[in-house]
């Protein structure tokens, strides 16, 4: 195959009708740019979903007590009793809980959260002790004045393992520093009891909250429960078992919110479907318009180049050579439009990523899928004209000369 000659032939073919070629190129470029944007946003949504699930924890789901219900009926709040009941009934799962207090009122910097929990929290949530240790059962039983601090808060307060931190009139010894993932779950739909942020100070939940200025809370009140299953395959069964347990008369809590991987994905899925419908329609419209213009360009090219086709056949070109020539012309337009559209969209998305409200992920799929689409579009929309050109009888073509 003489590639230089083929490229030259292709270039001349496309330049013969600059108007149609330009229109086809523009439509396909816009379509490809829209496709790239769509893929980047869908990729961003998918990535965000994975991050949210990852931040909640693998095989973890949570139950969250809405604050208004808590104010209305104290007896129907989540409490440490629920943790005990669930733990006793779910031997294949780990159950923990979290109570949030006003950190600022206790003397912590603005935005810091003071949370009370037990010794199993770090086995359930994907938070990692980077220095020191987490609470142990002894800390919980003896109501030890110890604390685990997130690295972000420790840095802000200049704390390290062994430091003392004062919460109103009580002094706590920092026993561990923890990396706490935050950011992905902090959306309007997710309560702080699930995503407390990365400026967090944890104390044993058995220590009386004497730092609290709020009315004395009910004994053992919790804002959220977290349950981690041991078997991914039985995760849905575990959720159903917890649902059944929470329906027992002594466990019922009004207005409980369930935060499961499915509920996290569900919210984003609606978002994803909307983007797919709107973006997909634009992509389809532009690509079909560009493709049809391309077909029209090639068909006109075949009609006006009949003598040239005859000459090529007289010089030994096979029908395949002729068909390939027109198909390659189409591929030149679709692939160059793909590169232009992808490049432009990539640049715009890179620039807008920092301030865009939409999650954007520029992965390899954002390049590979448009390239494959360009290739497939080129083949599909040029097939008919290329076939028509290849089937022109050389003697008929030369008669038109």
């Amino acid at each position, binding site marked *: 195959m003489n590639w230089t000659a083929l490229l030259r032939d292709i270039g001349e073919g496309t330049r013969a009708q600059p108007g149609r070629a330009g229109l086809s190129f523009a439509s396909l470029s816009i379509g490809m740019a829209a496709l790239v944007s769509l893929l980047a946003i869908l990729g961003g949504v998918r990535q965000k979903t994975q991050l949210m699930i990852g931040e909640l924890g693998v095989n973890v789901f949570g139950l969250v007590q809405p604050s208004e219900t808590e104010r209305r009926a104290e007896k129907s709040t989540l409490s440490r009793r629920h943790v005990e009941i669930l733990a006793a009934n779910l031997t294949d799962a780990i159950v923990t809980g979290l109570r949030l207090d006003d950190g600022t009122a206790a003397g912590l910097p603005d935005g810091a959260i003071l949370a009370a929990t037990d010794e199993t929290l770090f086995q359930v949530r994907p938070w990692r002790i980077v220095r020191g240790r987490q609470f142990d059962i002894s800390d919980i039983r003896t109501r030890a004045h110890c604390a685990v601090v997130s690295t972000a808060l420790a840095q802000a307060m200049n704390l390290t393992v062994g430091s003392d931190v004062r919460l109103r009139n009580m002094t706590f010894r920092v026993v561990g520093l923890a990396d706490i993932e935050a950011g992905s779950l902090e959306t309007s739909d997710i309560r702080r009891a699930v995503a407390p942020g990365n400026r967090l100070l944890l104390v044993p939940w058995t220590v009386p909250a004497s730092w609290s200025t709020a009315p004395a809370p009910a004994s053992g009140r919790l804002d959220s429960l977290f349950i981690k299953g041991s078997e991914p395959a039985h995760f849905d069964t575990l959720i159903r078992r917890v649902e059944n347990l929470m329906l027992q008369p002594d466990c019922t809590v009004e207005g409980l919110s369930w935060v499961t991987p499915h509920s996290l994905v569900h919210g984003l899925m609606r978002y994803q479907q909307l983007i797919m419908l709107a973006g997909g329609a634009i992509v389809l419209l532009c690509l079909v318009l560009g493709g049809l213009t391309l077909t029209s360009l090639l068909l006109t090219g075949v009609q006006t180049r009949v003598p040239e086709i005859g000459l090529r056949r007289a010089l*030994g070109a096979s029908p395949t050579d002729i068909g390939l020539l027109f198909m390659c012309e189409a591929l030149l337009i679709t692939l160059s439009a793909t590169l232009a559209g992808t490049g432009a969209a990539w640049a715009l998305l890179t620039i807008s990523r920092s301030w865009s409200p939409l999650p954007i992920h520029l992965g390899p799929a954002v390049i590979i899928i448009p390239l494959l689409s360009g290739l497939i579009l080129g083949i599909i929309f040029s097939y008919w004209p290329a076939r028509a050109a290849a089937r022109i009888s050389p003697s008929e073509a030369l008669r038109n000369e």
Partner: protein
Amino acid sequence: MTASQPSILKMENVSKLFPTPHGPARVLHSVDITIQPGDFAAITGPSGSGKTTFLNLAALLDRPTEGSLHFGGQDVSALAEPNLNALRKHRIGMVFQRFCLLSHRTVLENVLFRFRYLDIPRSRALSLARQALEEMSLTPHADQPARLLSGGEMQRTAIARAVAAPPDLLLVDEPTGNLDRDSAEGVMQCFKNLNQRGITILLATHNPALLKYCNRCFAFKNGTVIE
């Protein structure tokens, strides 16, 4: 030429029918022609007499409906399309009445187009193309776009393209139809020179003045031929 040398083109009892809405139209009737290597044969006859159909068959661009067609001693009547392509590519040259040049390309590029479907190194093709241009006295126009040439120059470019890779058989269809008398004389002289170099030429023409250049003449009338 020796007696044992096979004919370059041999048609035996060849007929060609084309489908029409009113049934098949017979354009060639039982044509028997043998062209020997080195011939400069003219095909004459009025329009519609079957000259172009005959040339298309000779160029292996079409197949006979009946009869047998031999090229270089080989029966090509039922030869597969890729084999016909190979024969056209390597052994047949064609010159057309309206030149069939690529107007936006230069003269040299038009001649180089002869090698478009041949596996010949670029440097060799360039050398052959320049040689053909030299023979046609077109070297000064080599870098000029073909559309700027005169009619005679265009036809000589087309001839240079046809013979740049020397063919066994050169088929020429009305080569002077679009030329003035002087240009026509120049073009015919080119054909004469090529024939003297051993290229077999089959020339279709209306113009009786061109017959003086040929050593054989076939007259077509209503699809039949007489020598």
